[in-house]
């Protein structure tokens, strides 16, 4: 896989971090950190999944399907297990 690329730590918050693969369906969260190789991090970034992005898990399992704004992204379980999120309790922005 080559060198690892860690997403920077979250700004503010203080909520408990959990793996994306453990997040319940329909529960909004923000991307917090990840242990990805540079290629994976680059691709996720291009798809709009960056640190602080608000996301919702639509389908759990393998693949884990998340929605970032109106984009649905399918992630193999092994990727979802390496992404950490914090539950977002703020009201959804319009």
């Amino acid at each position: 896989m080559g060198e690892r690329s860690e997403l920077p730590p979250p700004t503010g918050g203080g909520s408990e971090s959990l793996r994306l693969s453990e997040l319940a369906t329909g529960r909004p969260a923000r991307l917090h950190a990840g242990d990805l190789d540079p290629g994976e991090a680059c691709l996720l970034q291009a798809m709009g999944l960056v640190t602080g992005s608000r996301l919702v898990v639509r389908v759990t399992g393998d693949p884990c399907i998340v929605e970032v704004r109106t984009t649905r992204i399918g992630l193999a379980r092994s990727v979802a297990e390496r992404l950490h999120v914090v539950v977002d309790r703020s009201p959804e922005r319009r």
Partner: protein
Amino acid sequence: MTLLSPAPRAAAAARPRRILLLGNPNTGKTTLFNRLCGLRAKTANFPGTTTDLRRGRMQIAAADGGSAALEVVDLPGLYSLELDLPESRVAAEALAAADGVAPAAAIVVVDATNLNRHLMLVGELAPRAVPFVVALNMIDLARRRGLTFDLGRMARALGAPVIAVAARSGEGVDGLIGALADVLSGAAPRGVPDLPPAGDESLEAWAERVVVASVGGVHAVGGESDTVLDRLDETFTHPFLGLVIFHAVMAVLFWTIFALATVPMDLIEAVFANLGSFLEGHLPAGAVRDMLVGGLIGGVSGTVVFLPQICLLFFLITLLEDTGYLARAAFVMDRLLYRFGLPGYAFVPLLSSHACAIPGILSTRLIPDRHDRFATILVAPFMSCSARLPVYVLLTSFLFPGSPALAGLAFTGCYLLGAVAAMGSAFLARRTLLPGKSRPMVLELPTYKWPSLRVAFANALEQGWAFLTTAGTVIVALSFVMWWLSAYPKATPPAEVTALAARAEALVARAPAEAAELGAEAERLTLRHQQETSFAGRLGRGVEPVFAPLGYDWRLSIGVLTSFAAREVFVSTLAVLVGAPEADDGAGVLERIQSATRDDGTPLLTTATAVSLLVFFVLAMQCVSTLVTVRRETRSWRWPLLQFAWMSGLAWVGAFVAYQGLGWLGVA
């Protein structure tokens, strides 16, 4: 000076000005391309790269009231111009005129239902010198979701005209062409975009600001759960249900191809059979007539007859892709592929290889890991390509005459056998030559939508034409060669055959029925003697011992041998070798091959030989163009030679087991 003033237009007469079409994946970019260029599109290698790009021509109103031609280049879908990914590099090179042709303008296609992310690409393009128009596509879908747009405000923020379009229905396309003409002529001066300092995160914030300022509607930012969509995604990607659905979809696809293609295929066969009869009846006997009927008509009919199936295959695959289902299927396949050491990214190259291994192998460039990529390249030719279709049709319709359902099932079986061989070979390769684990899958899932018949039709036509012009020319050329090899040197019939013909002649007046029977027998023996003593006969007999354990006689052996250049040649070679149709029998090329006999009078094809041939053609590496492509992509002869030896060896062993196994079971 306006951009479309007479002087530059005169220069453009030699080379039309270039318009780049770019956008994120799944924005409907290709649909818009087809709208702009009609069916005049063609794929070509972009200078400086070997990535397939689509090019087309469109007409646009010029400043003097006339019209000017433009070249439209459909760039691959990309997320960003800045990423170290092949599609990003191709787009950046095209914008920077790396091939010496500077683009006159660009059309950036953005998805109106997903603006935040798509506007980031606009933000990357805005500081560059190329003027552009933004096509706000899928406006109909956005309206249905309750979104409203202030296009003027958005245009001011982006520094470029923004036109709402629905490429599928054609709504707004005229307005887009008008805006493009204004940009090209200078009638619409370029604005100054309200851009933040460079950097992805600030660009994201900028995109959000533009959206908040110019888009209204309850779902403008963020979305709510869509139960139907969630359930569909869950079902289609389910470990068990997803696999069942995938196989059911593929089985229906091939059954449909088989069932629907019969009518046009019969029609084409009848046309060529009648044409052959017509020429035989009207041309004087001799080498020219034999060459036209045996070589040209035989070869061309052996090619054109498969056009309906190839067009149907591409039509249905394009429809399926357009629905959004295939991206879900990729995840189902990822779980399967991963076990055999292939990445989920290999799904698209492997699926493309069902049309032709060459674009499939080229598309492996999108696989980031070298070992993942080489493993995919090695096994891609196992996927049943369109060149194998003629052989599959010939043999499955022989095995199951009058039963499209069983023939379709056998067809699916051929595809499955190829896929199984590919997986097994990948498994071996990843444990020996290309060690390591494959990269896990990350993929954007497009919105489900009704497929566009127009796009599917355009793609089917394009691929059908490509088959005719590339494979067809090779087939016709080899058909001529095969006809010559089978027709020369001219042999004198043996004495007993001459005596038989003389007896038939003598009986014409007294017993016409018996005379006709004897005459036909004499003609058959003459033709057989000619074929046996011809160059083709000698060549076939030379290689026959290699293929005899697989159940092939000299005709089948030479058919297999010639098809190592290109698989499609097999049917046309046999069509030539089994001889021209009788003037009045009206039999099609497939029927003639299926009813042909060997030198000893036994059928050319039996159940066992047909199965053996099917296995051989599923597994063998019989395409010189693919081998050359593999050499180019891997920069070594090691891989194509290994591929050739492995696949052909496996094919021989597989066909041997099938033939001998069926013989052992008593199936002749």
